[in-house]
Structures are given as C-alpha cells and as structure tokens.
C-alpha cells in the first residue's frame, strides 16, 4: 500500500466512528494536559524556590561561629566554643575555591538621636572583603577602604524605630541620616562614671539599598581595624574588671565568613573546614535538603500526570480492540485481496498514533490555558505545598512554567503512547484468520 492510501484509509476509519474517536481523543487530551501541567508545576516550583532562596541568602557563603552547637554522643546538643584567630583565617584562605575570607566581630550598639534611642547590630569585617560577600547595592556613599576605613555601611531600615520613652506610650520616630544627628555608643558594659564615654557620630556613612534579604536591612557594617580602635578606646573607659572581659572578647573572632567561588563547591569547602575541626554552617546545606524535597514533589506530580496518561493509553487500546472486533470482516477481506500483513498492522498503528497526535496537540493547547489559570488562581494552594511552606514565594510568582521542550516532549509521548497502546490490538488484527474473519457479520 502506498503511504498516502494508508493515511487516507486510516483517517477515513477514524472518521467513521466519530463519537468514539472523539471520546478517545478527549481521554488523550486529559492525559496530556495532566502530564504537562503537573510537570510544569514541578518546574515552576523548583525555579521559584531556587530563585527566591538565592535572593534571600547568598548561596556561596559559609560561616564559622565562635559559639556553635554540636550533637554529642548521647544525642543532646552541646554548646562548644571555637577559638578563631588570624592564623585560622589565613589557613582557610588557602583552601581551594575560597574566594574571600573575613573575620567578624558582632556587637550591639546603642543609637542616640536627641531624645530618641534605638539599637543596632554592628558587624565588623575586613573592608577589602566587603564587596565580595554579595551585599546589596549602595544607595548612598561608598565602601570603606584601608586608607579611608571610617565609613560605616548602614542597612536601609536600620534608622526606623527610634523610641523616646516618656510617659506611658513611647514615641516612635524614623531618623533621616544627614538631616538628624545620630551617634552610637557601645553598651555592652557600663561605662566607668569617672571617664567620658566613647561616642561616635554617624557622619561618615554609606547606605544600603532596600534588599530582599532582611538580614541586610537592619544591621550595619564597619571595617575591622576601625572597629578595633573604637572598641579599645571604649574598653579604656570601662572598670578594670569589665575592661579585661572586653579586651578578651577581641582575642577570638566571633565569626569567620567565607565566600566560595561557586555554589557547587560550597559543600566541598564546608567539608574541608569540618575536617580541620571546625563546625560551620551555610545556607547551601539547607537548600540541598530542600531541593531534594522539591525534586521529590516534582516527581510525585509527574507520577500523577503519568497515571492519567496511562489511563488514556488503556482507553486507546480499548478503542482499537473494539475497532478490530467491528472490522474483523474487513480485515479478512483485505487479507484475501492481497493486503500485506504489515500494511494492516501499519493501518492500525497509524490510527492509534493519530489519536495520540490529535489528543497530544489539543492537550498541548489546553495545557497553556490550564497553566495560565493555575498561575492566576492557584498560587495560595501551591505555595502551601512547596518546601518551606510558601515562605520563599513572592507575590505573583509563576507556579506553572512550561518550557519549550515540554509540550513537544508531551506530544511525542502521546504519539508513542498511542502507537504502543495500538500495538497489541494491531498484532491481534494480523492474526485473525481470513476465512474466519470473512464469516463474521459486519
């Protein structure tokens, strides 16, 4: 048989039983939609998740904290103190893939502006390393340099929430830097009343732009060397007992922060540091397990889609089996008239493949529609089943994303499912004895 005759005959056979063909196609459409939509949701979730986690934290940063917790042998968590000095910083900077290392001191300072007061976290780190740690952009001022290290970087929202405690209800105020005068003092220990407290005016500052990572919005950064001088001055104003404690706290860094050149190497570097005997943490280690959850979710969704596809495959097979019962006589006639068995097989495979193709194509179109509506109305539901319970999703996120390969793959899959589902019925058709076939009614 010529291919054109085969196609024509196949299409004709399909159109002879319009209702049945249509219903089978509808089954296929549903199968395709479910698989495309489910996979698209999986992809969309993974993308949103990865994107937002990356926005919220720098994925390449590892921290070693002075006070860390380890799980002891009896299963309890135990606080340990890790001593960190310049030698360790140096050692870590030698590790492969380490892009930048900085020691960190972390103190709370008291802010004063007239009668109003507030607190702020002041983080001291090596000013040369600052630009490498994925800080938000500066909206005002510049980074400190070793030559000009007295610049303090201030978070976008750090100047909110100044309070003036008078009477019962405290008054709140947002300070505008440059307009209002602000100064800070260290407040860890009470100052010796005989001495003048160290007060630093916030004149030389730079401002961070508002960041999606809340951690940058409320704290401030200062150069390590500048911090040490200030803190030593402050220590000098303390009582002898407190002075010792204050100076002792400078001996070990509170944190060492490491930036790794690539996300992929974070876990390796972390492992190396742990082998050196230091407990460390990174966002990456949390992301890793969350990504795993997200991948699993994607697989579960895909499996649901696959089940729908399987049902429509059975549907096609059923249609073809029915079709063969009906057309037994025709098959017999065709055989006697000299039709090759392979042509009969091809005819049936073409018909079932055609159902797959039509169903796949329509399903593809409807998938885009379904995807659109999911993105419009399904956000709340879907964000709740995402790892992190929707914490990481932003407003108007696209939960269903259809990459260009997905509909094509789904369509191909639909055709393959059709042909495979039609294969057994087609083989059955060829095995029918011509004599028996011609005796049947039809």
């Amino acid at each position, binding site marked *: *048989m010529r291919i054109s005759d085969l196609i024509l005959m196949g299409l004709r056979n399909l159109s002879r039983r319009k209702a049945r063909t249509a219903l089978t196609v509808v089954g296929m459409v549903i199968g395709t939609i479910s698989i495309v939509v489910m996979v698209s949701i999986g992809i969309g979730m993974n993308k949103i998740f990865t994107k937002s986690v990356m926005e919220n934290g720098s994925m390449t940063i590892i921290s070693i904290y002075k006070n860390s917790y380890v799980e002891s042998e009896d299963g309890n968590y135990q606080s340990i103190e890790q001593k960190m000095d310049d030698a360790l910083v140096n050692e870590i900077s030698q590790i492969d893939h380490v892009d930048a290392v900085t020691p960190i001191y972390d103190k709370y300072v008291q802010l004063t502006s007239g009668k109003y007061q507030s607190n702020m976290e002041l983080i001291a780190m090596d000013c040369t390393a600052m630009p490498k740690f994925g800080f938000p952009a500066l909206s005002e001022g510049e980074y400190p340099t070793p030559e000009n290290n007295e610049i303090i970087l201030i978070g976008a929202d750090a100047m909110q929430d100044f309070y003036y405690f008078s009477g019962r209800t405290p008054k709140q105020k947002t300070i505008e830097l440059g307009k209002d005068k602000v100064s800070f003092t260290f407040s860890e220990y009470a100052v010796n009343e005989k001495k003048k407290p160290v007060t630093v005016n916030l004149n030389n500052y730079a401002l961070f732009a508002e960041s999606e990572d809340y951690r940058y919005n409320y704290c401030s950064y200062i150069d390590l060397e500048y911090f040490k001088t200030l803190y030593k001055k402050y220590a000098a104003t303390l009582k002898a007992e407190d002075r010792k404690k204050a100076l002792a706290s400078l001996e070990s860094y509170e944190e060492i922060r490491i930036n790794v050149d690539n996300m992929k190497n974070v876990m390796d570097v972390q492992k190396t540091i742990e082998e050196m005997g230091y407990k460390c943490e990174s966002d990456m280690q949390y992301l890793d397990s969350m990504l795993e959850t997200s991948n699993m979710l994607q697989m579960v969704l895909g499996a649901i889609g696959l089940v729908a596809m399987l049902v429509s495959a059975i549907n096609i097979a059923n249609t073809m089996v029915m079709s063969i019962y009906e057309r037994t006589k025709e098959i017999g006639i065709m055989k006697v008239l*000299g039709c090759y068995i392979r042509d009969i097989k091809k005819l049936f495979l073409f018909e079932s493949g055609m159902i797959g193709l039509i169903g796949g194509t329509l399903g593809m179109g409807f998938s885009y529609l379904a995807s659109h509506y999911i993105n419009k109305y399904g956000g709340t539901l879907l964000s709740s089943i995402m790892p992190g319970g929707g914490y990481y999703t932003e407003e108007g996120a696209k939960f269903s994303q259809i990459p260009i390969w997905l509909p094509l793959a789904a369509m191909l899959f639909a055709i393959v499912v059709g042909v495979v589902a039609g294969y057994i019925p087609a083989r059955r058709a060829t095995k029918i004895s011509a004599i028996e076939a011609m005796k049947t009614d039809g």
Partner: protein
Amino acid sequence: MGENIEKIIEVKNVKKIYHMGHERICALNDVSFHILKGEFCCLLGTSGSGKSTLLNLMAGIEKASGGQIIIKGKNISKMSENNLAKFRQRYLGFVFQSYNLMNSMTAIENVEFPLVFKKVPRKIRRKMARDMLIKVGLGSRLRHKPKEMSGGQQQRVGIARAFVANPQIVFADEPTGNLDTKTTMEVMDLIKGMAKANHQTIVMVTHDPRLASYADKIIHILDGNIQSVEILRDITKPEEQTAASLEDTEEENKKEEKEIVSVQATENDKEMEERI
C-alpha cells in the same frame, strides 16, 4: 495451443485434517488433480464434501495438512504470508457467495481496493475500476454503497473487483448461492464471458449441478475424495462451439455497453460539475 498447454494449478496428494477438540475430522483425503490454463473448472459436491476447503487451500487462505499445491509452478503451501499476499495480488481474484464487499466503501472504491494493495496510482486505478464496473453493467452505480444495491448488483461489484487486476486465476465460492435463478444466469454468463475474453482460469465451487454445465471440467467431490473428473469441453482442442459462445457473450456485452454509454456520459457531466 496444442497438447503442451500449461497446467496452471496442480494439486498433489493434498490432505486436510481439522482438529475439533479431541476429534479429527478429515475434510480432504489424498486429493490429486490439475487445472489447465484458461479452463473453467467446477468443484461440484454436496455441502460438507470438502469442496470449499479445497478452494481455500488452493487460494492459500488455509494451510494443507499434507501434500502439495502448485500454482504457476510455485508451491504455495510453503509460501510465507508475505509472499502469499504478493501472490494473491498478482495472480488471484476472488468471488464470494456473500459478496464480502467493504460496506463502508462505494462500488468504485470496492473495485479499486485490490489495486490499492498493488500500489497502483490513484488516477489509473480509478479509471480501471470505472471501466470494470461499466463492463459489468453498473456504470450508473459507481457511487453507491453495497447496502444500497441488490444482491445481483453487489455480486457484479464483487466480480468487477475479482477481475479488475486482470488476474490469471479467479476463485469463485458459490458465487450465485444467494441469488435468484435469473440473476444467477446473468452472473454466470458474466463470469464466464470475462474469463474467456481474457483467457483466465476459473475455479468455481458449487453444489448446483445446473451451474456445473457452464464449466469445461467438473470435479465431483464426495466426503473428501474425488469421485470423478468429467471433461465437458477439451480446451486443448479448439472448438467452434466455444468460439460461438464467446461471440454470443461478446455481443451481449456490447449491448450492455451501449446502454451504459449514455449513463456514463451523464456521470461524466456530474463529475465535471463537481470539479468546477
């Protein structure tokens, strides 16, 4: 012609045994005969005598349990399904008692159906099918479906389908079994006329001794055995009688054709309109 006329079908010691559960039913028991090229051969027997089985074996629709069937010098009992299909396309035509037309197709589509398997281009096979239908006197019913035609007309479509590819052998299984006497005669004349015109071999199965008189050779079958072979006309020797009857049928055909020409003209007009 002469004595060395080709034996187109040779049946040698053919057996056919059916297994029905534990029972073995011997449908054909060591049957041997031959049919010459251009011969009209009739397998005559009562129902259950094994004549239809023999036809099916010769057509390659069923496999023999033993023995050889040689058609055109090829042993068809050893052929693969594929080669059989090719063989049928090339050499065989079939006419059935129950017509076995494709109900979803029109007369012309039914007739061109064997040509579809032979990969004949669309235009050519359409023309061949149309010519054939005109020859059998159905020029006015090209676009009718089988259900819209009488039994005689359906069988004419069946005959047109059997002869359209100009096969060397046509098998006819009780071709007139479902028809009344008048139509039976028409149909038989048609089959015989066509076969003689193209020098084709006919193998017909029937239980009706009256129909057997159309044949050149009658093979009487009873209970799976050949009882006797009766030669009515020896086709190895040219006879005036044969020639005369041939002319008769040709004249009849011409008459029919005249009737049809006018019908065909209107058909053509219709088609032209459709194309425009």
